[in-house]
C-alpha cells in the first residue's frame, strides 16, 4: 500500500479522498495534516453558521467516524513546517511522516490590509471557524457595532450574518458598487438597496485610513474624516494562495504552486489542489473548479487519464432573500450588445451580454429562475441568433412559432387578471375593457383606468396592450422619449426623479426600467443634470456623463486645441488681470480674441497645457469663465450711471452682483444675462435669457430672449424698484428654469412650452420665490467653486488620454 500524505483538510483535498476511497479504498495509507484542529467542513457554509441559520455540526463534511472508517491517520491542529523532497518526508510540528505521494492542499490565507491598527484584538478575517466564532462572540454584546471592510461576497455574507445576530453593521467598500467583480453597477445598486433594507449601512468609495482602540478595536477612521465606532472589524478584502510550503520546498512557483492539467507540481510525486495552485496562469477562489481538480487529481494518483480544464463559473451570494446570479464576462465592448430587462416593482434586473451571436455573460438580480439555462448557453457557446428577440424571457418563451418571434405575443398571452400597472393595481382586463369602451390613446386609458398615471414605468406595457387590442388603428404618442434607452420623456423623468426621490443614476436606470445597463450618450448627460439639479446634496456630479467641453472645462476647437476664457465679472477687468492674461497668452502661444460677452478668449491652447495655464490665471486671482458649460456664461453690462450721462442705475454693479451670485450653477442649457443702464440698451439685454433694463423708477426684468439660431426679444417678467428685488427675481427665475426645463432647452424654449403666465404666476408668490432662492443657494453651496483650481489640484491625470470611452457622452 502506498503512503499518501495530505497537507490540508479543506474542501478540495477532502473531495480527493472521497474519490480515492470510492474508487480504490485499499490503494493508499493516508495521513492527513490540518493546521486547524478539526477535519473537513464545508467552508463556504460558514456564513449561515455565522448568521445562525446553520450549526457547525451541519456543515461538517467528514466527521471522526468517516476518517476512522477510511483508516485515515489524522494529525489535526498540527502545522507542517517543511517538506523534505530528498528524503520524501513531511515534517510536522510533532514529527515526520514519509510519503510516496504527497498532496498539498493548503488553500489560501485572508489578505489583511496593513493599515495602522490592523493587528488590534477585535480585527478578524473571515476564513475559518475561529474567525466565525470570534464574530459570534462579539455579537453577544447588546447594541454591539461591527464594521466590515470589503463589499465582496465574503464581506457581505459576514455583514448579513452579523446583522441577523443583532449588531449594527457598516460595510465599507472602496469601489463604486458592491461585488464589482461579479455584478455590474445596476445589480450592485439593487444589492445595496436590499442590504440597506436589512438595516446594514453600506458606504461606497470608502477609503479606510486606520483602526484605533485602546488595547482592542474601538473605532474605524476613514480618509474623509468619518469615524465609525466598532466592537469588531471584519476584514474581508480578498485571499492569497497559502503556498509557502511549496515555495520552501523548491517547487516551481508562479503566484501559487504551479500545476499541470493532471494536478502535478514540478515534482511528479507531489500534487497540489485547490486555492494554493496556479494552473495556466489562473488562481482559484470558487469551489466548483476545485472539485473538478480533485477528481482529476484522484485519477492521476490512480494512474487514470484525465485533464483539468478551466470552465465558466457562476456565483451565488448566501444571504437569505438576496437572489443574484452572475456568470461569464459582462464587461462592455464595441462588439458586444446588451439586452436588459427591468421590473422596478419587483426589484428585478436582468442583463445579457451578446457577442457574435453568442451569450457571453449574464447578470441577474431578483429573478434567477432561468439562470441555469442562461449559464448553459454561455458554457456551450450556443448560437442564440434565432431567439435573439425573446431570449431575455427565458426558456419558456423559446421553441419557435409566432409567440417566440413576436415580443408583442407576450403581452397578448397575458391573462386578463395580469397586473399591468402596479402602482394603481390595474390589470390587463380593465385596460382592455376601457379600450373596448372607446379609449384609443394612452391618455384615454390613463384617465379611465389610472394605469400608467402614477410612476409611468408601465407606459410601454399599456401601449402594447393598446397595440394588441386596437391593431393598426393604434398610434403611439407623438411625444418622443428621451432616447432608445427608455419610453419616458424628459418631462416624465424629471417628474419621477422628484416624486420617487431617485438620487443616483443606478436608481434611475432601475426604478424607471431603463432598457440599457447604464444609459447612453444621449440620456446620461440629461439624467446627470436632473439629478444634480434636484438633489444637490445627495447626488455627486458624474464627470463621465458630461460633454467633452464640460469634462475638460474648456472649449475644444476645430484643430483639437482648446480655448481658455477667464471670468471677468460684469465685463470689468484691471491692469493686473490684463498683464496676467497677456503673460499667459505669450507663454502658451495663444491667439487672443475679445468676445461678444465682454471677455478675453485665449485660443489655441494644447490640452496638456490646460492645467498650467489655469494655474497661472488662478494665481492672478481669476477663475473659469465657464464659456463651455450648460450654466451661467456672462453677464454683459454697460458702464451705467457711474460713467454714462444717460445711465439711470449702477448697471455694472448689478451685473457683477448677479454674476457673483449665479456663477458655477449648472442649468439645462447655457444662460446669458445682460444689464443695461438705460433703455438705449447698450448691453443688448433684450436678447438675453435674462435681461435687465434700468430705468429711473427701478429695473425692468425681461426673460426668454435669444440671439442665436433664433432671434427673440425678451418678454417682461416684472418691474421692480430696488436692486435687491432685481436680484431676487432673477435668481428665482433661474432656479425655476433649473428645476423644470428639459435638458438642452434654452430658457426661451422652456418659457414657450410652459407659458410666461405660469412663470409669472409661480414667481409672484413671495414664499415660492424664497423657497426657490433657498434651493438655489443650497445647490450653490456644492457647485459654486472654480473648476480650474480643482482640476489643477486633483485631476491633472484627466488631461492624459481617457480610458473607458463607452461610458462617456460625446459632444
Amino acid at each position: 500500500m502506498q503512503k499518501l500524505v495530505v497537507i490540508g483538510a479543506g474542501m478540495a483535498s477532502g473531495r480527493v479522498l472521497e474519490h480515492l476511497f470510492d474508487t480504490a479504498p485499499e490503494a493508499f495509507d493516508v495521513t492527513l495534516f490540518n493546521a486547524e484542529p478539526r477535519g473537513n467542513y464545508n467552508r463556504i457554509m460558514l456564513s449561515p453558521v455565522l448568521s445562525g441559520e446553520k450549526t457547525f455540526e451541519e456543515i461538517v463534511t467528514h466527521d471522526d467516524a468517516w476518517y476512522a472508517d477510511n483508516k485515515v491517520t489524522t494529525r489535526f491542529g498540527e502545522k507542517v513546517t517543511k517538506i523534505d523532497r530528498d528524503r520524501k518526508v513531511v515534517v510536522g510540528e510533532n514529527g515526520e511522516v514519509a510519503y510516496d505521494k504527497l498532496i498539498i492542499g493548503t488553500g489560501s490565507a485572508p489578505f489583511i490590509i496593513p493599515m495602522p491598527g490592523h493587528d488590534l484584538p477585535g480585527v478578524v478575517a473571515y476564513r475559518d471557524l475561529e474567525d466565525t466564532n470570534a464574530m459570534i462572540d462579539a455579537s453577544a454584546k447588546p447594541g454591539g457595532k461591527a464594521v466590515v471592510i470589503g463589499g465582496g461576497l465574503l464581506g457581505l455574507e459576514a455583514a448579513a450574518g452579523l446583522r441577523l445576530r443583532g449588531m449594527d453593521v457598516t460595510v465599507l467598500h472602496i469601489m463604486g458598487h458592491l461585488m464589482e467583480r461579479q455584478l455590474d453597477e445596476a445589480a450592485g445598486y439593487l444589492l445595496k438597496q436590499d442590504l440597506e433594507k436589512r438595516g446594514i449601512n453600506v458606504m461606497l468609495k470608502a477609503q479606510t485610513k486606520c483602526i484605533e482602540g485602546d488595547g482592542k478595536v474601538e473605532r474605524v477612521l476613514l480618509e474623509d474624516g468619518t469615524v465609525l465606532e466598532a466592537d469588531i472589524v471584519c476584514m474581508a478584502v480578498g485571499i492569497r494562495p497559502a503556498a509557502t510550503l511549496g515555495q520552501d520546498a523548491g517547487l516551481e512557483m508562479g503566484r501559487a504552486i504551479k500545476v499541470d492539467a493532471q494536478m502535478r507540481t514540478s515534482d511528479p510525486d507531489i500534487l497540489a489542489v485547490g486555492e494554493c495552485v496556479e494552473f495556466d496562469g489562473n488562481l482559484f477562489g470558487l469551489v466548483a473548479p476545485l472539485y473538478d481538480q480533485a477528481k482529476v487529481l484522484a485519477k492521476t494518483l490512480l494512474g487514470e487519464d484525465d485533464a483539468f480544464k478551466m470552465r465558466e463559473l457562476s456565483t451565488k451570494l448566501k444571504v437569505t432573500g438576496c437572489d443574484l446570479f452572475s456568470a461569464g464576462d459582462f464587461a462592455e465592448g464595441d462588439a458586444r450588445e446588451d439586452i436588459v430587462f427591468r421590473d422596478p416593482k419587483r426589484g428585478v434586473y436582468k442583463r445579457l451580454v451578446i457577442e457574435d451571436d453568442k451569450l457571453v455573460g449574464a447578470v441577474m438580480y431578483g429573478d434567477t429562475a432561468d439562470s441555469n439555462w442562461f449559464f448553459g448557453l454561455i458554457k456551450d457557446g450556443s448560437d442564440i441568433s434565432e431567439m435573439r428577440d425573446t431570449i431575455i424571457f427565458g426558456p419558456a418563451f423559446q421553441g419557435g412559432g409566432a409567440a417566440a418571434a413576436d415580443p408583442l405575443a407576450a403581452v397578448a398571452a397575458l391573462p386578463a387578471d395580469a397586473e399591468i400597472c402596479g402602482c394603481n393595481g390595474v390589470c390587463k382586463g380593465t385596460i382592455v375593457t376601457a379600450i373596448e369602451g372607446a379609449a384609443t390613446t394612452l391618455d384615454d386609458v390613463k384617465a379611465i383606468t389610472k394605469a400608467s398615471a402614477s410612476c409611468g414605468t408601465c407606459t410601454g406595457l399599456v401601449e402594447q396592450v393598446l397595440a394588441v387590442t386596437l391593431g393598426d388603428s393604434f398610434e403611439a404618442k407623438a411625444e418622443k422619449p428621451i432616447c432608445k434607452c427608455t419610453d419616458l420623456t424628459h418631462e416624465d423623468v424629471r417628474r419621477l426623479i422628484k416624486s420617487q426621490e431617485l438620487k443616483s443614476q443606478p436608481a434611475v436606470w432601475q426604478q424607471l426600467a431603463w432598457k440599457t445597463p447604464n444609459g447612453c450618450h444621449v440620456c446620461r448627460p440629461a439624467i446627470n443634470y436632473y439629478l444634480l439639479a434636484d438633489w444637490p446634496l445627495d447626488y455627486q456630479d458624474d464627470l463621465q456623463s458630461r460633454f467633452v467641453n464640460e469634462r475638460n472645462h474648456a472649449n475644444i476647437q476645430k484643430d483639437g486645441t482648446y480655448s481658455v476664457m477667464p471670468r471677468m465679472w460684469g465685463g470689468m477687468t484691471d491692469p493686473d488681470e490684463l498683464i496676467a492674461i497677456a503673460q499667459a497668452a505669450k507663454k502658451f502661444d495663444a491667439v487672443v480674441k475679445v468676445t461678444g460677452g465682454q471677455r478675453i478668449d485665449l485660443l489655441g491652447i494644447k490640452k496638456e497645457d490646460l492645467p498650467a495655464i489655469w494655474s497661472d490665471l488662478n494665481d492672478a486671482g481669476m477663475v473659469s469663465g465657464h464659456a463651455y458649460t450648460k450654466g451661467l456664461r456672462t453677464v454683459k453690462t454697460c458702464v451705467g450711471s457711474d460713467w454714462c450721462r444717460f445711465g439711470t442705475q449702477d448697471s455694472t454693479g448689478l451685473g457683477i452682483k448677479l454674476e457673483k451670485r449665479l456663477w458655477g450653477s449648472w442649468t439645462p442649457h447655457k444662460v446669458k444675462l445682460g444689464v443695461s443702464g438705460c433703455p438705449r440698451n447698450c448691453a443688448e439685454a433684450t436678447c438675453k435669457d435674462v435681461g435687465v433694463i434700468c430705468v429711473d423708477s427701478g429695473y425692468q426684468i425681461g426673460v426668454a430672449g435669444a440671439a442665436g439660431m433664433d432671434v427673440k426679444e425678451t418678454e417682461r417678467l416684472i418691474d421692480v424698484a430696488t436692486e435687491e428685488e432685481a436680484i431676487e427675481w432673477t435668481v428665482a427665475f433661474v432656479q425655476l428654469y433649473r428645476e423644470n426645463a428639459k435638458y438642452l432647452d434654452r430658457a426661451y424654449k422652456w418659457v414657450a412650452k410652459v407659458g410666461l403666465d405660469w412663470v409669472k404666476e409661480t414667481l409672484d408668490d413671495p414664499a415660492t420665490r424664497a423657497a426657490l432662492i433657498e434651493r438655489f443657494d443650497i445647490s450653490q453651496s456644492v457647485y459654486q467653486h472654480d473648476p480650474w483650481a480643482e482640476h489643477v489640484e486633483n485631476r491633472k491625470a484627466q488631461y492624459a488620454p481617457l480610458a473607458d470611452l463607452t461610458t462617456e457622452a460625446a459632444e
Partner: protein
Amino acid sequence: MSQPLAPAATFTRIAEVWIPEGDHLVHGGGAYDGAEGLSDLSGQMSFAKGEGLPGKAWAEARPVVLKDFDGSYFKRTEAAKEAGLTCAVAVPVFAGKTLKAVLVILCGDDADHHGAIEVWEDEGSKLVLTDGYYGTAKDFEAISQDISFAYGQGLPGGVWAASTPILMRDLSRIGAFIRAEAAGEIGLKNGLGVPVPVPGDKSFVLTLLSSENTPIARRFEIWDARPEMVGAEKKALRMDGFCAVEGPLWPKENPPVDAVSASAWQGPVGQVLGSGLPEVHQGATGLPKGYTLMVALPVYKDTELTHVVAWYL
C-alpha cells in the same frame, strides 16, 4: 444517522385548517392527537367572520393567540380542556386581500413542555411582541415582552427584512437575543420565523421556538416557490431544513443546483403548492421515513405563493 426515539411529548399537539366557504369558515382537516371529542366536534362546526378563534383571525386579519379558553370566544372549550389543551394560535393565510384559510395550532401546558409561539407586529421601524404563548417559560416570556427588533435584526427582524421564512439554529448563541441566556436555560434550540402577510400596511412575523426535549417538530423544511426562483412552472425548491433522521436538508452546491424540488400536487408539500392552502397531513404515506404528521403553511407575497414552511412529527 439512526432513527431517533420519538420524544415523549411535543409542544404543539393539534393542528387544523379552516377554509372559507361563502361567509363561513368550514373545517378543512386536521390532526387531533387522539382527542376524538375535539375532532368530532370540529368536523361539525363552522365559523362566521369574527366568530370563534378562526373567525377572529379572519376578522382581525392578524395572527391571534388565545391563552385562556374559559370565558373567551373559543367555541370548543370543553372538548379542548378535556384533551388537556390550554392554548390556541390561529394564523390567517391571505393571498392579497383574499383569505385562503386559517391554520389553528393547539398546545398543552405543563412544567415539562417548553417552547414558544410568538407574534411580532411592526411599530414603524421596529417589531414588537404583540402576542405569544410560552407555556410555563414565564421568565422567557417576561424578557420577550420588553424587547424589540429592528429591520434585519434577530430572527423576527431578519424575516421582516427579507420577506422570507428563516430557520435559525442554536438560539442560545444568538447574541442579539438579549434573551439568549433565558432561551438556553429552558432548552430552546431552534427557531422558525415566518412572515404573515395581511391586507393593509401592517407586517406580522410568526416565530415558533422549539426546544430539544419537547420540540415543535423533529423536522423543519423551507421551500422556495417564487417564480423568480423556480420559473413559470408551479413547483418549489427546498432551500433549508433539518431533520432528526436525515440531518441537514439544504442544498450543498453553490449555486444550489442540487436543491430538492417538489411539483404542484406531488406529495404532501405539492398539495400546498397546488391548492395554495395549508395542509395537515396525517399518516406515514408520502411523508419522509419516520414521520406520521406534517403541518405545512403557505406564505404569500401579494397574491403570489412564495414559500412553504413545513414541520413534521
